[in-house]
């Protein structure tokens, strides 16, 4: 899968993990994919949930290390 933009949010907590992801996605083109790296457990649930509420498509949420996750989001609108 092609990743168009990557955002490393290690050290960030809610709600800024979502706020920063949203600011990037707003500036991307429809159809592009954003990969967000998170190390704050509550954000791993909240970022995908909030993205879906905004109408974006969450492609995957994967644990990629000890206390490390990636969220893949496709911009729909």
């Amino acid at each position, binding site marked *: 899968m092609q990743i168009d933009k990557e955002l490393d949010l290690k050290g960030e907590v809610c*709600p*800024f993990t979502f*706020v920063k992801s949203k600011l990037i996605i707003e500036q991307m083109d429809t159809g592009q994919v954003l990969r967000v790296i998170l190390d704050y457990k509550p954000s791993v649930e909240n970022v995908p949930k909030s993205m879906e509420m905004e109408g974006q498509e969450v492609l995957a949420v994967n644990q990629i290390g000890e206390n490390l996750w990636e969220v893949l989001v496709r911009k729909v609108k």
Partner: protein
Amino acid sequence: MSFHFTEEQIKRYSRHIILPEVGGVGQKRLLDAKVLVIGAGGLGSPSIYYLAAAGVGTIGIVDFDVVDFSNLQRQILHNTSRVGIPKVESAKMTIEALNPDVKVIPYNQKIDKSNVLDIIKDYDIVLDGSDNFPTRFLVNDACYMLGKPLVSAAILRFEGQLTTFDYRNRETSPCYRCLFPEPPPPGLVPSCQEAGLLGVVGGIMGTLQANEALKLILGIGEPLVGKLLVFDALTTEFRTVKLRKDKKCNLCGENPTIKELIEYDQACEVHF
């Protein structure tokens, strides 16, 4: 669309950015917006304060008064240590302490026929929070001529009124003169003894003015056009009265007679 926010701005405006109706795009719009507020008093204090907190990037403030102890019951931009200094200066200090993103442009002068168009022309929206009829009519006529949206509010005793005149659509929006064709005769203007006011009424109506301005800037919701909102603090009730465009209106009607600015005399100078 591209924008850049500092870490501090992301934190400051996060509650806006989270809103689907605002986002980074809307916040950028707010930072680029220019709002002019007439009067830094009971209505201007809350409207200016909230517009500044929201990150409206340029706020012009017109007022030629100085801060007086009698203002402090409701004019929350000012404080005891500011008594005696111009209200626009006091307002600027308060706003700069709240949000360095906001550029405050003070107009420490009486607004009149000679300067009103020049002051208003560079702004996107005008909020009228003035305390006298000559200013209200002058600001209204100038906004109409320049095609600027005007958010008008008035307060007295326990009552507040609010409406928005959207002069970007002059063919459909009623104007202030559809509501009040001329200033009331001197006898009908409340005398000094009658000019009591529960301070919080200014807080409520001024905050609603800021809400109208934010919606207009963001292009969301529906502005209060063609409707007059009346608030009664004693019953805590709002009611809405329909406003119609008057075909016979001297300013916006079919045969307008007002083609240039008019300066009315102030019947009774009530300065609080």
